[in-house]
């Protein structure tokens, strides 16, 4: 009985089932980017750019497609799927074109590389050194 209490409390079956990632009631996001992408989807939904059913369908499709490409999908790549679903949906809804998104990704990459380590990364920095 006591053993059950301990395993039930904040350490759900993860250690008992190696397949399942461990998850105590800890932080809900592993990295700031996960929180950002989560919040963007919630906000766009609230503003009526898509329904939650549309969102669930897109997210479900991305998860399925990742699994088919070999992702064991243990929950740790969940926000990767979330990001891809959002990228697809903003393009479908004509909020951001996919080419525009790729260009902007490249611009951030150039900006990061032009920024000395430890300084804030600002877009356009590579053009105005």
């Amino acid at each position, binding site marked *: 009985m006591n053993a059950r*209490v301990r395993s*039930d409390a904040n350490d759900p079956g993860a250690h008992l089932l190696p397949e399942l990632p461990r998850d105590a009631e800890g932080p809900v996001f592993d990295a700031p980017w996960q*929180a950002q992408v*989560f919040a963007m989807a919630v906000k766009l939904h609230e503003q009526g750019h898509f329904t939650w059913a549309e969102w669930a369908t897109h997210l479900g499709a991305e998860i399925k497609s990742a699994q088919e490409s070999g992702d064991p999908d*243990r929950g740790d790549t969940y926000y990767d799927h979330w990001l891809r679903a959002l990228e697809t949906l903003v393009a479908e809804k004509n909020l951001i074109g996919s080419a525009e998104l790729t260009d902007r990704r490249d611009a*951030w990459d150039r900006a990061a590389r032009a920024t000395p380590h430890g300084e804030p990364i600002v877009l356009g920095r590579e053009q105005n050194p």
Partner: protein
Amino acid sequence: MGAGDHDHPHEHSELSELELRVRALESLLTEKGYVDPAALDEIIDTYENRVGPRNGARVVARAWSNEEYKAWLLKDATAAIADLGYTGRQGEDMQVLENTPAVHNMVVCTLCSCYPWPVLGLPPVWYKSAPYRSRVVIDPRGVLADFGVTLPDDTEIRVWDSTSEMRYLVLPMRPEGTEGWNEDRLADIVTRDSMIGTGIVSVPAAAAAAE
């Protein structure tokens, strides 16, 4: 200066592929006026700090303490939960599933990760994982065993698949030995997993010893 031309490789910054893509999305959505960074921070703060399974535990403790509330909760969960102040995203259409000696309920979202945010916060990692999502449907008893829970053979297990339209909260059985406890004390022993159906509520050994 030509970026990187004479730099040593470790002197400039680098963003991961995922960070780059998120920055691309956020900066474009902000420029086009679709999102406001302050509003995003507000959402993040809510889910990191203000919404979580303690909300659901209050609902369960109230239902255990008040028969009238429990009847309302089972009949109209959305309204009964809103009455305690827990409303908002992904809690618009709620149903509460009562565990009894005859029936044990478990919740999953086989499609993605639909989950009742206002009462449980954001889902744990394992809830979002393929092993849980696929196995709980096929072998609920096996999954329960992995969580350290064994139920009598004659207890029926029902697995409920959440959707974007309907979210479920399990009302676990109140453990013996909690007679006369007030709601605060009861809420303290209600675990997140017990409200998903992968756990049961037990009286912690320390509390039992203190009786």
